[in-house]
Each structure stands twice: as C-alpha cells, then as structure tokens.
C-alpha cells in the first residue's frame, strides 16, 4: 500500500496545517458561471461541511476540488500545492491520497464489492493478492460490511452501497476523504449510521473529511466547520455554533427551512440559481 503522504509545498509562507486552500475559485459551464470567486481554507484533520440548497453550486465545488471540473479562475491548493500548475504524475499522486464517496456510490457494477475495494490497490500498489485480500476485508470491516466481499453492488441496499463506496474510498488510506451527499436517499436510521461511520473514521484515522450535504441534522452532527453556499457564493463560513447564531437572511432561511417563493418561469429559475438578472430585465 502507498505510504507516502501528499508532498507538502515547501514554498515559504505555504500554510503548514491547511489541507485544502481555495482562493477566488470560479467555475463556469459554457458561458454560465456557477461559482463566483469562492475562497476558504480547510484545516488538516477537520471535518468540513459544504452546505447549500439544490443548484447552489456545492456539488460543482466538490467536483472541482477532486479534479473532475476545471476552474475558469482562481486556485486550489492541496497541502499547499497548486492543483492547476502541478504535473500530471504529481496530480495522480495527490489523487491516490484522496478518497471520494459518490452520491450513488458509483461502484463498478461488473465487479464484486471486494473487487471494487481491491481495484485501487491492484492498480496503484505492488501488493500481492493475499495481502490485498486482507486489506479488502479490513476495509469492509471498518464500514460494517464484513463478509460482503463476494456480493455484487446490485445485491446491496442503498445504505450498504454507500458503505461499500466508503470502503473503496478508504482503500489507499487517504489523507483527505470527500463525501457527496452521504445521507441522500437513505432513511433516517441508515443515514444516522453513515453519520456515525464518518465520525468513527475521523476519530480513528484523523483524516481531513469534506462533506457536501443539504441535510442539516447530519451536517451539524459531523462538522467542525462549515460553509453555506448560495447562488455560487459563500454566504456563511464558520463553526457549527457560529452558523447557528448567524443573522444572515439566507442562512436563516436555510436553517429555518423557509421555502423560496414559487417559481413559475424558466427565466426566474435560472435567475434563482445564478443570482444574475437576465439582460432583458436590467
């Protein structure tokens, strides 16, 4: 298994205890900008929650952090290293030290659960098959899926699929673990189990955890710090207590679950998402 940590940036002034630093990040799809200059820092070892409503840009932010979308401006630094300027092999090394759990699990349907977890080990390490088998069992134990290595993903329930996806994300012992909507689509009991698992992982491995969610109960339970994104900008950034005491109208609306005014036209919906007034209405 890989043992090298993500190489730190040796540049003077680079923040030493910062896992991820985002500066003036902009992302656009074609001509439409969905993230408008976002900046924040995620200290190493903390659980950082990105809150936001549907279409707020939180999933785009997460996809950009893991390299699936390319910023149109600004920079992302992982352990001080600028993601945009490093070479492809360096980026691959960083990716190997990060784990990502997707909303629907994104397990490979043609492979068993065990093969899914083993895949990054087989591709990126020189471990022999018997060692890989032991590591797979260990990872499945950690997420409460002991004995499920020979099941196909289609045979698992939604909650079990998410746990299996977490086991795969843990396979390379990541320093940073990303979760996209870990509780989405799960009943409250299963969702509480996933929250508990995230807390357990943080306690056991002291890893940096970044969670995108709109589930308030879950967010306040697992977060050390959180940001609230609305229309592609950060409207609040702080600890859970600071967010709960915030007087910002959008934060209050989100936390107090106040509905948006009814949208009847497509143009109003786009305006709600982007926060931009259409040219013909200016």
């Amino acid at each position, binding site marked *: 298994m890989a043992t090298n940590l993500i190489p730190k940036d040796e540049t003077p002034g680079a923040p030493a205890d910062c896992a991820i630093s985002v500066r003036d990040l902009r992302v656009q799809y074609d001509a439409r900008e969905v993230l408008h200059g976002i900046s924040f820092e995620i200290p190493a070892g903390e659980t950082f929650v990105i809150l936001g409503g549907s279409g707020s840009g939180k999933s785009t932010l997460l996809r950009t952090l*893991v390299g*699936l979308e390319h910023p149109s401006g600004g920079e992302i630094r992982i352990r001080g290293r600028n993601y945009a300027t490093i070479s492809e092999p360096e980026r691959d*090394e960083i*990716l190997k030290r990060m784990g990502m759990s997707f909303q629907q699990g994104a397990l490979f349907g043609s492979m068993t659960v065990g093969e899914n977890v083993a895949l*990054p080990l087989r591709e990126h390490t020189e471990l022999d098959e018997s060692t890989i088998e032991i590591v797979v069992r260990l990872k499945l134990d950690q997420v409460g899926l002991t004995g499920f290595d020979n099941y196909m993903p289609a045979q698992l329930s939604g909650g079990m699929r998410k746990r299996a996806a977490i086991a795969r994300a843990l396979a390379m012992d990541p320093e940073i673990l990303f979760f996209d909507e870990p509780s989405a689509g799960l009943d409250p009991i299963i969702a509480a189990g996933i929250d508990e698992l995230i807390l357990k992982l943080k306690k056991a491995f002291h890893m940096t955890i970044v969670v995108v969610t709109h589930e308030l109960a879950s967010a306040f339970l697992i977060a050390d710090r959180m940001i609230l994104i609305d229309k592609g900008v950060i409207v609040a950034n702080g600890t859970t207590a600071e967010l709960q005491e915030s007087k910002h109208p959008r934060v209050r609306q989100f936390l107090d679950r106040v509905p948006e005014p009814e949208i009847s036209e497509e143009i109003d919906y786009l305006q709600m998402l982007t926060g931009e007034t259409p040219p013909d209405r200016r």
Partner: protein
Amino acid sequence: MPLTETIGEATINGLAYVGGLAQLTGGAARAVFVEPFRGGKLRLGRAIHQAMAVGVEALPIVSLISFFIGTILALQGAYELRKFGALNQVANAVVVVMTRELGPLMTAVVVIGRSGSSFAAEIGTMKVNEEIDALETMALDPVHFLVAPKFLAMILMLPCLTTWADFMGVLGGAFFGVTAAGFTFRTYIQATLDALILHDIMTGLIKSVMFALVITAVGCHEGFSTGLGSEQVGRSTTSAVVKSIFLVVLVDLVFTGIFYFTAPR
C-alpha cells in the same frame, strides 16, 4: 440557415467527430503499444475477457451468417454463370467475394451489433452512474482502463473472426455446389484453393483491422458522449450502431479503392 453555412457546419462537426475518434484510438494505441514499455500496465486479463466476448462468443452467429451468405452467393452466382455454361466457376466467385468483401464486411456488421453497441452501452451506463468519474478520482485513466483492452481485443479478434467467416462462406458455397451444381466436396474445395490468392485474403484482413479500429472508437466515443439520464444510454447505443455501419462502409470503400488502384496489373 443558408445551404453553404449548413454544409460548412456539418463538415466541421464531421471533422471534429473524426478527430475525437482519432484521439481516442491514439490514446488506446499508446496504452497498448507504448505504455507497457515505460512501466505502465497492460491489462491483459481485461483484454482476454473482452476477446472472449468479442470473438469467441460471436463464433456461432458469425458462422451461421457466413454459411448462409456463402450459399446465397453461390446461388446468385450460379444464376448468371449457368447462362454462359460456366457453372463450374461458382467456387471461384464465392471465394473471391467472400475473402475480399463480404467476409470482412458481414463480420464487421455482426460485431457492430454485438460488441460496438455493447461498448457504447457499457461506457454510457458507467458515465450515467458516475463510474467514469470514480475512475478519474482514483487516478485511473478511463481510456487506459476501459478502451485499451477493448481496442486490443478487437484488433486481434476481428481478423480471426473474418478468417473464420471466409471459411464458413466457402462451406456455404460448397453446400450449394455439392447439392445442386455437380461438384463433389473435394472438387469444390480444390476449385476454391485454385482460385484463392494471398492478396485477396490479405486485403480482407487489412480491412478487418481498420473496421476493428472504427467499431471500437465509435462504440467507446458514443459511450463517453452519453448525456445525463438512463434514456441517453439507449440513444448512444443506437448512434454507435448507425455511425459504425456508416463509417465501416466508408472505410471499406476507401480501402477497396486503394487496393484496386495499387494492385499489380
């Protein structure tokens, strides 16, 4: 939109599409022929799995279709040849048309239906289920991981299937020759061997390698281009079949032209 603008846009889109196919083929070729010599992994296990699906599992249907095509060719050939009292030339007609043209082409059409569509459906479903994204976040290149094994399997298996199809076509012709044209099985095969030249077989095999590249590139490209939603997978699959058949026929035309004008006279 004016006609010239429509033609211009269609041309640019067509060239961009072919460029996309070339890029995908180049990436897969690099993963198969270059990367293993630079310490990269050649996923032989996945390639063998693909070769079984593309080649071995296609044998029954390719055999049956080629046999029937051979019989049809003999029937159609005999219909004209007997007017000139040249029914004994039917074996020549069957083997030349099978090896030069119908063997490679019919095999490619069957493989498009079985494997080209399946490549598009497999990769399209993976795209919709975020499995392609998952590969990228694990620092695994989807072209190396998914396309390269298919590429290797296709360029090895399609020529093999084509050779087998040529043989089955000759057997189909022999079925007619023996039952209705006064040949014995031995005389039919002897007439076939006399008519067979290496150039015919080689041109057919070169075409089949080109068809393999087209089928793999189009199937995978359509898979990667799948939009959001499961119904898009169906569209990608249909599109892969239609575009593959068109491009295979186009490539066939180009190579048949090249072989005609470069053949020794």
